[in-house]
């Protein structure tokens, strides 16, 4: 089990409409790794993350995530082990934060108490009755991180990892990433501010390929 990488991309190309996101991307992510993904606005970090999350099919090349070949039906079986926190909140604006997390818990087959506990863990115990569209960006972000605590993923993908979080909450990101890594999983963090990342190594998208950042 340990020998198998969590993500491996071989010469992956990805094109959406008329935009080429990746040309010959290579990447390996081993269990226990925490990797930063850097790059300027519009370089395709979010799209790459969504592809790794099995939500987009590569246009060429091949990739495996958690042992499932991208673009095949095998990805359906590994999706529940992946959590992606996008740069837009994956929450229903009309529902309360509590309802949102309980929705996740029920569909993930986790006990409902875990939803409330995880909200408390990210410091939102008192805000669970607040509607998502009445919450601040930082609160939404915390609520989304609670999802990672409920699902306990093997692969955690954080887009704009620290966006909108206050000093207190930035620690949550690292704690959650540590949990995942500690359990033999892997984490990819996207950020514009490399200084704030505590990662093992970083890669960056340059002209459609992935390059290591020293």
């Amino acid at each position, binding site marked *: 089990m340990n020998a198998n990488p969590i993500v491996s991309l071989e010469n992956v190309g990805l094109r959406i409409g008329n935009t080429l996101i990746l040309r010959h991307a290579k990447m390996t992510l081993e269990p226990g790794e925490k990797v930063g993904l850097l790059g300027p606005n519009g370089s395709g970090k979010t799209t790459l993350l969504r592809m790794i999350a099995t*939500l987009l099919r590569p246009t060429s090349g091949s990739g495996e995530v958690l042992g499932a070949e991208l673009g095949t039906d095998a990805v359906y079986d590994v999706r529940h082990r992946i959590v992606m926190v996008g740069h*837009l909140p994956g929450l229903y604006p009309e529902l309360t934060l509590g309802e949102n997390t309980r929705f996740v818990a029920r569909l993930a087959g986790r006990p409902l108490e875990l939803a409330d506990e995880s909200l408390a863990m990210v410091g939102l115990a008192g805000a669970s009755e607040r509607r998502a569209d009445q919450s601040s960006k930082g609160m939404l972000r915390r609520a989304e991180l609670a999802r990672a605590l409920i699902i306990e993923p093997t692969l955690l993908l954080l887009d704009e990892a620290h966006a909108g979080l206050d000093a207190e909450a930035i620690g949550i990101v690292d704690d959650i990433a540590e949990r995942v890594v500690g359990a033999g999983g892997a984490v990819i963090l996207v950020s514009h501010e490399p200084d704030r990342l505590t990662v093992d190594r970083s890669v960056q998208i340059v002209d459609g390929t992935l390059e290591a950042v020293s």
Partner: protein
Amino acid sequence: MTFWRQVYEIARKDLLVESRTAEVALMTAPFGAAALIMIPLAIGTDAPLLTDLGPGLYWIVVLLFGILVILRKSAVDGGPQRDLVRLLGIDPAARFTGATIATSLLVLLFEVALGPVLVALYNPDLRGWPWLFLILPLVAIGMGLLGTIASGVTTSLGTRTSLTPLLVVPLALPLLLGATQAFEGLQLGGSIVPWLVLLFAVDLALAVSGILASGPLEEAVT
């Protein structure tokens, strides 16, 4: 996590969101009622004429204005919500079924809300009304299915609000005929069974194609 459990959760979530926005109850239904008030002013307020035309107009309003139920906000997840649901590992067929159930229930609500308006304004012949307990849901399910398929293929397109009605309305013709003819059959005392069979057949064909299409559809929307 069984299939029906997923269906239940999706439908529940859609209806919960809808209960917060109240789009169908507070916006679409009054709009349909307003239409039923406007029509006689245009075509004449002669009582026998309205009794005659009432049911047909009712079904036209249900099918045309019912498109707004399909287009309502809670029917379509935004990009991040779609990603969330997909990563939760939900079967596309379960998602389709759950969304269809929610939309169908709301179309049914729309139909029921317009019923009293029809009775009050048009004084229609309501012979055989218990059959409505069958006709109304069959039409609502058909609309729910057509609507879920059509809003599936138009998801995230800029012209969604114009394109969806064009895709739905022509294909809704068998529903219109089934509903109006069954209604007429009740008044004339004829057999309405063939029309119920037609409605049922439409629903069945749409359900089968919708469920088979749900997998490819999920891939089409990225």
